[in-house]
């Protein structure tokens, strides 16, 4: 089993640790560009003495100490960096299952595009602001893409408490609702569900597990706290079967037979038609 993971933050590292201990895992590829910083220490598995080193290098040491037989490659790069796209594509093509453990939207969309291109299944874990609960999504090549899921959830669920209005005087300042930290316990709870879902998905795709209840949902939310108007009680799970949206503008785009030159020519012509008259 080859795991292709992006992100080794406080949640991603827990997922990586739990997955890599599974005897079926033989190879891990990790993409993570960040350095381990003082503010990471509180919620991370690495010691304060590791501050200043790359998280990916620390993760590699961590896995090697526990599973010396696992082949592990790390890339100190941003998933959205155009320089590495061919390499990422090659690695994704070679994997059994993908793991997305990043918390920014562009990286989630980029991972989604990558995994759809190579038609490989993947999982995504998301801890909600304040650690009130979290999501684990399972994405398959013919199922909903991340755009379908994000759009569906925007319309149908309440994830967080109502946010204050933007600060018009300082438009570039941080938005307060995004900075409520989750506790390490909350992060580990959701990351553990993420790891279990990933291993189940990989076994399913390898034919080591019969299809069963996995088909009945794509997204699982698990509550960790009671939040009035959001979650009625802690420790409840809700399952959503989010279908692929026929009108999705992300996954309805399919590769065509046109060459780069044909596309460029068509684009030049279209822009010439729409240029200033």
């Amino acid at each position, binding site marked *: 089993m080859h795991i292709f993971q992006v992100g080794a933050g406080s949640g991603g590292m827990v997922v990586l640790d739990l997955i890599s201990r599974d005897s079926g895992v033989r190879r891990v590829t990790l993409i993570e560009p960040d350095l381990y910083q003082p503010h990471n220490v509180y919620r991370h598995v690495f010691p304060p003495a590791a501050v200043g080193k790359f998280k990916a290098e620390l993760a590699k040491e961590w896995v090697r100490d526990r599973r010396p037989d696992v082949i592990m490659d790390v890339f100190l790069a941003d998933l959205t960096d155009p320089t590495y796209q061919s390499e990422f594509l090659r690695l994704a093509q070679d994997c059994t299952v993908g793991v997305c453990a990043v918390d920014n939207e*562009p990286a989630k969309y980029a991972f989604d595009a990558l995994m759809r291109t190579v038609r490989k299944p993947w999982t995504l874990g998301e801890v909600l602001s304040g650690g009130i609960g979290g999501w684990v999504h399972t994405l398959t090549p013919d199922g909903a893409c991340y755009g379908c899921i994000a759009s569906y959830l925007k319309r149908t669920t309440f994830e967080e408490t109502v946010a204050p*209005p933007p600060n018009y005087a300082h438009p570039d300042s941080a938005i307060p609702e995004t900075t409520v930290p989750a506790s390490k316990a909350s992060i580990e709870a959701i990351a553990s569900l993420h790891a279990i879902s990933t291993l189940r998905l990989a076994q399913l795709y390898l034919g080591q597990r019969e299809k069963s209840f996995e088909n009945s949902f794509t997204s699982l939310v698990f509550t960790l706290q009671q939040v009035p108007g959001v979650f009625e009680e802690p420790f409840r799970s809700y399952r959503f079967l989010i279908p692929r949206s026929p009108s999705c503008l992300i996954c309805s785009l399919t590769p065509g037979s046109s060459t780069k030159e044909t596309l460029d020519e068509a684009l030049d012509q*279209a822009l010439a038609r729409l240029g200033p008259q």
Partner: protein
Amino acid sequence: MPLLIAAMGLLDTELGKRRLLSIELPAIEVYNEGRDPEYRISVVRCAGSLVLSYRLKPCHNVYQLETRLLSSYPIVPPETRILTPLKHCPHLLEGQTLCLWRQGSTRAANRWDASQFTCVFAVLAAWRWLACYELWHETGEWPLPEAK
């Protein structure tokens, strides 16, 4: 299968070019069809971005606008600014950029929906914003509630 590059780059990846050719530019052509020439959207490249220039007349006044589709569009929402000078008002950011999507780093904080909206939706949203501005100009009250 041709190489479909993962990261979105509107003008320099196959995925970005396909999005433009099959969704965004046809939507602009439909918007322009039958419209007075002075109110049509024109599009120019600007480095890695596309800039849409157009005029809107929500009530009695005509406004000149610019909507920029950055290289990371549609994952990152379009940025719309009004070139016509405005009075300082709510929901207006630096450089007369409209506060339309409440862009945040999380899914819940971001009102832009990359899987459902096109750049023409951003033009229509700007029209609605300007209609609100004109009412605010007359009454001192913004007619729509704060984004939540």
